[in-house]
């Protein structure tokens, strides 16, 4: 296991044909939120993975095909849930506003 994934929109170097990628950015009215935490929950609501956002608010997951929930935790804000569908060979882009 290497270093944790920091989010970003570039998929350079990733074989996107074999992965079901969910990625995006966490923003507030003041702009992108770095060091928010994005949790990936499966179809039953169970935790599957979590990443901190990058300084530009980005995050990325390598999921399996299906429907997932993204849950965003950030300092001073209520947690926000967002549903997203993942498909192999497709990069699902999500913007989450807190």
């Amino acid at each position, binding site marked *: *296991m290497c*270093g*944790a994934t920091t989010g970003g929109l570039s998929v350079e170097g990733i074989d996107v044909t074999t*992965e079901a990628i969910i990625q995006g950015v966490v923003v507030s009215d003041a702009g992108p939120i770095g060091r928010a935490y994005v*949790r990936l929950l*499966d179809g039953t609501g169970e935790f599957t993975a*979590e990443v901190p956002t990058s300084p530009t608010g980005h995050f990325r997951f390598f999921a*399996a095909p299906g429907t997932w929930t993204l849950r965003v935790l*950030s300092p001073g804000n209520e947690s926000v849930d967002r549903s997203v569908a993942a498909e192999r060979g497709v990069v699902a882009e999500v913007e989450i506003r807190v």
Partner: protein
Amino acid sequence: MSRSDVLVDAEWVEAHLSDPNVVLVEVDEDVSAYDKGHIQGAVRLDWKDELQDAVRRDFVSKSGFEALLSRKGISNDNTVVLYGGNNNWFAAYAYWYFKLYGHNDVKLLDGGRKRWELDSRALTTEVIERPHTAYVATEQDRSIRAFRDDVLAAIGSLNIVDVRSPDEYAGRLLAPAHLPQEQSQRGGHVPTARSIPWSKAANDDGTFRSDDELTSLYEGAGVDLAVDTIAYCRIGERSAHTWFVLHELLGQPNVKNYDGSWTEYGSMVGVPVQLGDAPGSAEGGAA
């Protein structure tokens, strides 16, 4: 042993920032996290470069651990408080590792780095150098470490707890979903292992659930707490989190962490593997 012997909260840490006997140690999967900011006075421990043998797949030797802690400025009588990212996965792994080599006074910061950040508590980039020590470790305590043969012998008899996510357990994912899924090993789980994801033991902010909630979690999932238990995940860090819950918080006497975990088990030739969401029978097979 009570919860306060093994777990401290942020207020406790803040009150002990100037305590010379307390050493804060940050352990992350993302080893660059420390450089971006850490709790005042904390030293960094690199779970990969410093806790793994550089050649073969194993931990550093007793003398290697002694040299490492001496270099970090940690004494045998220090209170070591571990914390980190990923809901304390790697901090719990280091906790178990410290116990393996006989360090008595070690604690986890409840909620780790995430809870600290969500509370907007202070972080610094200032790096301190602690004076070197002459740390003395014990031989490894094998009563808390499982090897592959222990796992094979436990199928159908002891509690085997798979703490990965349900999709990894079933074989639909091969790694936690923040990592690429390209892996060499087979998907699935050790036959008869119960699926009890590590995350069920923690709240969203990374703090541990209450003892009552934890006891009903494991009993409700079919774990007989009177029987010995082996916990595993992919590389042994999430299962160290569950080992901490069962052995340190709930005081279960015979709990082992299988650090070889799925990257070893799922690569072995000829061992039974079970696919799907159910524990399955000892022979394993498709869902």
